[in-house]
């Protein structure tokens, strides 16, 4: 944990709701390389506040890479690195003294900017709303051990379920597509017996909602998977495609 201090120049996107935004330049001085990226922004904000300026608005909560709140495009990369980490897990030792960083919100048509680095990702909730669950009423569940599930399938479902809903996939996709996000949910339930009854309607509804909300299409370029802090794989997109095709035939039964 060697201690080292660095200085950085930040070009930060500043924007008020409903107004045009622009980049502004700030100096981040004397930053401990053991600090996290968000802690660096905290320091900058404390200084801005003391100088009578408005601090940079950015979203964060858990600061340990699980809640999916944080995220910004740093030097052109979502979450600042393509290293399976969220912005809150990125540490300043990844940067060099004198670096100049451009910091921007996660951009996509479906993610309007609310303020500075904060965007509205509620479209992702709407996708889930349209079928990303098993419709089981509390109290109606059978004894948990009734249905054994092959370990491979449970593990694969967990791989898909690890999504934190941060939206980096959408921001990284050249088409602003939410396929990786949607496919992770569809996949999780397609792999488990509990998901079977609603399998066809789930995928149909979720894709329809995704389309309606202004996300782009998948052109299989896989930028999403490079950006995903949780390593969600594009095999789920392939599965989503299969599920979607199968939903046509399944329904007719």
């Amino acid at each position, binding site marked *: 944990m060697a201690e080292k201090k660095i200085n950085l120049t930040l070009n930060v*996107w500043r924007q008020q709701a409903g107004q045009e935004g622009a980049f502004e330049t700030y100096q981040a001085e004397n930053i401990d390389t053991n600090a996290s990226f968000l802690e660096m922004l905290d320091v900058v904000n404390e200084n801005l506040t003391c100088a009578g300026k408005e601090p940079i608005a950015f979203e964060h909560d858990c600061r340990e890479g699980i809640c999916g709140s944080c995220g910004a*495009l740093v*030097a*052109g*990369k979502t979450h600042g690195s*393509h290293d399976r980490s969220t912005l809150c897990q990125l540490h300043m030792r990844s940067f060099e003294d004198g670096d100049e960083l*451009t910091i*921007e919100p996660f*951009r*996509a*048509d*479906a993610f309007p900017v609310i303020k500075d680095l904060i965007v509205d990702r509620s479209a992702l909730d709407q996708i889930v709303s349209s079928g990303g669950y098993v419709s089981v009423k509390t109290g109606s569940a059978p004894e948990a051990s009734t249905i054994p599930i092959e370990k491979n399938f449970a593990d694969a479902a967990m791989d898909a379920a690890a999504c934190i809903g941060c939206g980096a996939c959408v921001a*990284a*996709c*050249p*088409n*602003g*597509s939410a*396929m990786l996000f949607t496919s992770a949910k569809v996949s999780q339930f397609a792999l488990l017996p509990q998901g079977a009854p609603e399998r066809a309607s789930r995928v149909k509804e979720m*894709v*329809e909602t*995704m*389309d309606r909300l*202004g*996300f*782009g*299409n*998948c*052109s*299989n*370029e*896989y*930028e999403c*998977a*490079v*950006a995903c802090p949780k390593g969600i*794989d*594009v*095999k789920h*997109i*392939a*599965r*989503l*495609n*299969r*599920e*979607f*095709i199968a939903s*046509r035939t399944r329904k007719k039964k």
Partner: protein
Amino acid sequence: MKNTRFLLSSIGQKLLLATSGTIMFLLFLVPHMGGNVLFLFGKDIFNSYAHHLHKLVPIVIGIEVLMLVSISVHMIMAARTTWANRKAASSRHSQKGSKERSLAARLMPWSGIMIFAFIVIHLANFKFYEKSKTMLDGHEVYDVYGMVLSRFQGDLWYVGVYLFFMVAVGLHLSHALQSALQTYGVYVPRTGSKIKAASMWIATGMASTFAIIPIIAYLN
């Protein structure tokens, strides 16, 4: 109604794109390439192939209609998706892609347009072109071989344009083939994928094979 909704959904459009592309690939590019290879075996064999092809007129017309439908569907769907994609990501500023994003993928709409332009030029040059006759096994047949030869001979500029278009075909296919599989739900891994490699090799092989004719014809 249900079907239109299915087909015009994001995934539906991609399925149409992949299907029309695959039809063009399997029923047009592959046989066409096969035919072209015969060029290497000399005038008689090539002209005989062309002659026999002309005897299969009903089938050829059927395929031509299918091609027309395919390319129309392909272009309409390509335009729709590309348009929606541009719009969905219209607000980008400092975004850089990762190393992952291949040139071929980036250039899909452009390589596609090149292919279309090429097809138009190509048809104008070879299909709707006055052809002279020649003798084959005592019959009078069109001298397709001679036509091709004369078109390329001595015209370096034309050969260059042709080769340029072949690069476009190669690029388009190298992304398209594996991408279509993923669209159909066949998992194409992000890294170390054999399918991706195969797609690249097939595309390169195909574009090179097509490129051989103008080169040989030019050198002839």
